[in-house]
């Protein structure tokens, strides 16, 4: 019976996930345009993709947004976890406030930040109204800055998750270690920086992997916040692929972009899973 129950699951995984993924990877190596064609054409789609200005921007943005988002989210999340680890009063209230963004969709998050950062109604308008009339904060409307505004929203949405994961790790630290730290008279901040956080390195790696995967997959946030604009200055691979697949009907380019996304996720996940699994098996 167990086998019979697992059969549809295996079938669905093989056909819908792996079969589909292989199909897309193969299509990326054909001359498919409006409709899929199956004659092998090597790396032609990729050569074209990486010569497309919009893809270059989207792909570069993934790294720019990714690095800033990972660093920002990890620092803020870890800092908050450390703060909450110091026997804080009203911890429940603080946690609730830090975690609620996680329950909100990226669409609502993106729209909210779009309004907050809009120069005509948001922060700039507010500061202008206070009397600083020449204050300018129009990043979201500037082609060279719009991608950075996504980082605000990304950090806002994800830091709570990192806080929760890191706090669980901090709470699991052996009390004996803390006793030894107190006996040696090491100040708390140095203890965290040099002893406790290095002990949690595997957890930190997990956090980095989680955020990195989310970055590669990002779609809704950029759609709601900037819609990739101005122009395509804040485009990301996820949006590029969806647009080329369903609006511009260019299956070949979309598949090549999707395959690059898949490769990026694998490049993050494969070494991680390898080390995690071998660590557990030891």
């Amino acid at each position, binding site marked *: 019976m167990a086998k019979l129950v697992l059969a549809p699951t295996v079938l669905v995984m093989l056909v819908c996930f792996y079969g*589909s993924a292989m199909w897309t990877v193969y299509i990326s190596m054909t001359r498919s345009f409006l409709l899929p064609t199956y004659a092998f054409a090597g790396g032609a789609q990729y050569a074209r993709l990486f010569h497309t200005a919009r893809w270059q921007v989207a792909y570069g943005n993934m790294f720019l947004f990714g690095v800033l988002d990972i660093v920002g989210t990890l620092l803020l999340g870890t800092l908050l976890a450390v703060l909450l680890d110091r026997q804080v009063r009203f911890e429940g209230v603080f946690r609730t406030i830090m975690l609620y963004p996680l*329950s909100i969709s990226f669409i609502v998050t993106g729209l*909210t930040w779009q309004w907050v950062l809009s120069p005509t109604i948001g922060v700039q308008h*507010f500061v202008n109204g206070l009397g600083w009339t020449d204050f300018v904060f129009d990043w979201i409307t500037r082609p060279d800055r719009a991608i950075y505004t996504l980082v605000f929203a990304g950090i806002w949405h994800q830091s709570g*998750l990192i806080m929760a994961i890191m706090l669980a790790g901090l709470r699991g630290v052996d009390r004996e270690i803390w006793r030894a730290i107190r006996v040696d008279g090491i100040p708390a901040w140095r203890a965290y920086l040099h002893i406790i956080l290095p002990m949690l390195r595997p957890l930190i790696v997990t956090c980095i992997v989680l955020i990195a995967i989310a970055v590669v997959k990002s779609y809704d946030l950029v759609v709601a916040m900037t819609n990739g604009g101005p122009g395509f200055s804040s485009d990301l691979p996820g949006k590029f692929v969806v647009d080329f*697949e369903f609006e511009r009907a260019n299956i070949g380019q979309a598949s090549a972009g999707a395959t690059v996304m898949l490769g990026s996720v694998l490049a993050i996940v494969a070494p991680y899973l390898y080390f995690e699994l071998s660590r557990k098996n030891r």
Partner: protein
Amino acid sequence: MSAASAQARIGRIGLYTLLVWTCLFFSIPLLVVIATSLKTSDEVRAFSIFSLPASPSFSAWVKAWFAACTGLNCGGVHVGFLNSVRILIPSVIMSVFAGSVTGYALSHWRVRGANVVMLFLLLGAFIPYQVILYPLVKMFSTIGIYSSLPCIIAVHVLFGLPVMSLLFRNFYAGLPEELVKAARIDGAGFWRIFIWVMLPMSVNILIVATILQTTGIWNDYLLGLIFAGRDNMPMTVQLNAISTTSTGVIEYNVNTAAALLTALPPLLIYFASGRYFVRGITAGAVKG
């Protein structure tokens, strides 16, 4: 007061100051949206979104619910709300059921190749949607249900399968083996053990899974956009369409009210369920 305790006190003050500032960072966007949604149209135009409404009114909420426009279509977000509910309920029930049964079959029944199936599920959870969207569209068109309610439900169940199965598998693997063994000696089969032994012990994990899927499916945008079809657009898709509609003056109070209405169900679930939500979100963090 000694120097050391003075220093400790400064440390405590610094600690709370930092916490309060970060909590402002987290809460201000929501507060701004709430404040704007309670303003009148004149007020929105005259003041910054950071100002408080002079005389709070729910008129923008009423308009968002009944009459917000997507292009020329002015039905309000209640249309998307109902669509989302119609998508949500069967999707959650079916994906939690499929996940729990798969997880159970993978844990206490020594099926050959169970580890391979788990690896398939695990790696499947990492595949970006974009990689398999187009082939799935083709498959659903071939069987003739593309762009329909059954289609989007099937897609949610499909994408929920890896995380749900692994969540339940990890939970069931932690239960003592003797439970199943004893039941088998008594002659109980696969389903009887599942219903009478496993499910009664799974209340917590069922709550976690249900919350995880409910918030995940409610907040989904991309799958709804591609697979639901025009008549079943979920609330997130409708909200984004409303907010990017550029005809006439942008009514920020209506748009913010629509955004809040869309965010309300998962927010309520979050505030009501607390720790279950956090457990689900950390377990399902690889999803999507």
